[in-house]
């Protein structure tokens, strides 16, 4: 099956970057990777394997900031979540927007709502509030006791 094949290929190529692989079924996978290998993994999926970038979901949890990058392999209906865990105090990760435009808006949105910094983003302006929002206030951040 393609699922096993793609896991095998990712393991060979990015063995040091992969932290955990969860296969829920043949169409849903979550792969946790080191944040610094996001460019290589996303580039491989997009350029070589023909995955489509759906969207990214940021989460604020006790572990810090997490991002699920959702990729779709449309020919077999697979949704592959590339999962990264970022630093609590200084969340930052390399931007994917130089590779494809699909991530441009969502990275701006995550920057605005969670305060995650996307390095080398072509234009990290605010997307939703157009400057009508106070600096340093991130609406979707949570407070943990």
């Amino acid at each position: 099956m393609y699922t096993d094949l793609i896991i095998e290929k990712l393991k060979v190529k990015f063995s040091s970057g992969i932290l955990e692989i969860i296969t829920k079924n043949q169409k849903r996978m979550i792969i946790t990777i080191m944040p610094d290998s996001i460019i290589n993994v996303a580039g491989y999926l997009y350029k070589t394997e023909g995955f489509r970038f759906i969207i990214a979901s940021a989460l604020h949890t006790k572990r810090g900031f997490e991002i699920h990058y959702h990729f779709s392999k449309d020919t077999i209906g697979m949704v592959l979540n590339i999962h990264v865990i970022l630093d609590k105090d200084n969340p930052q990760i390399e931007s994917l927007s130089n590779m494809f435009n699909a991530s441009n808006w969502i990275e701006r949105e995550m920057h605005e709502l969670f305060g995650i910094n996307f390095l080398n983003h072509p234009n990290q302006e605010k997307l939703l509030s157009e400057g009508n929002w106070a600096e340093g206030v991130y609406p979707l951040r949570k407070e943990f006791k």
Partner: protein
Amino acid sequence: MSKKTLIPIGPYHPLQEEPELFKLYCDGEIVKDIKWETGYNHRGIEKLSESKTYEQVFFLVERICGICSTSHPFAFANAVEEIADIELTNRAKYIRSIIGELERIHSHLLWVGLAGHFLGYNTVFMWAWKYREPVLDLFEMISGNRNSYAMFKVGGVRRDIENTKIPVIRQVLGDVKKKIDLLAGAVMDDPVIHARTKGVGILTRQDIIDYGAVGPTARASGLAIDVRKDDPYAAYPLVNWKVITAEAGDVFAKAEVRLLEMYESISIIEQCLEGLKKEKEGDIAIKVKEIPEGIGNGRAEAPRGEVFHFVQSDGSNSPARHKIRAPSYVNIATFKKSCIGQTIADATISLAAVDPCYCCTERMAAAYDLNSGDKIMNANELINASVKRTNEIKKTINSQL
């Protein structure tokens, strides 16, 4: 460098009557650059969802979009059912698909009408919206509402389509099909529509891949992606139908894809109605006790493209995180490719060609203090400021008396 003129479309669209602001930077009549500004109406639905129970979230997400109001509950149900590993009864699957496809028909008719309106061809607008009415009446018969049908819940649907209603639905679909024939003939053969839409707002296959565009926008550029086929859900794997594509990528191709898709929708509904007859009446939902901890990626093909819902459950009765991606979010972004280099008149129809749903994408409103410049006012502060100002005005008026 030549001087550019700024032509705004918005902040409230004059034709679509929805909040959006496109800034067209023009040199003469040619659009040289385009910027999109949001910031008119943010509803904070993702955050709001975290405070609602799974049952309540259906009503919330239904209100994201007034036109395709079942596509968000559809994707959310798929996400939650993935977490809880729920298999629906066949009757529930058929009913879900029937609702989804009826919605596609009325949404596509609405777009065809609006496209005519944009081109100044108001006859098409009036026809299309007139023929859309019987479909809305069907919704009223099935669910009690013309829009926001409240049909979905975790584990099935809320209302049955009784077998006695099947002949009525068939009758209306037959009539609608004849009207679509008429409309398709009028649109496809009209030389004015050809002149206004062919070769306008072209999106190449590579543009679609780069921007991750979905739905009829992608299919009109030759990319056969459709969640109903690729990642089948509800009753779509149980019926026969085909994905409609076109190659040109211009506005005409998008109209063609939508018109032909309506025939496929009618065919899907007819097969589903046939399937309904074989299933036991009333067998529409299974009981779901609780949603376990986990992550769900739910997808559904809305009339405008793939709707994506990401739900993280912590085992409680409400989502811990709920991310929503409406198809317009990726489709509107393609305007940088489709509008630049066009005339202003062509840019407006190119913007409309992706069937943008601003209420899915426009999502922000904020009040800020003009004096300090950065502080966000809460509701009480806003009221106090208003009272203060009123008192000041009163004082001025009284002093003048």
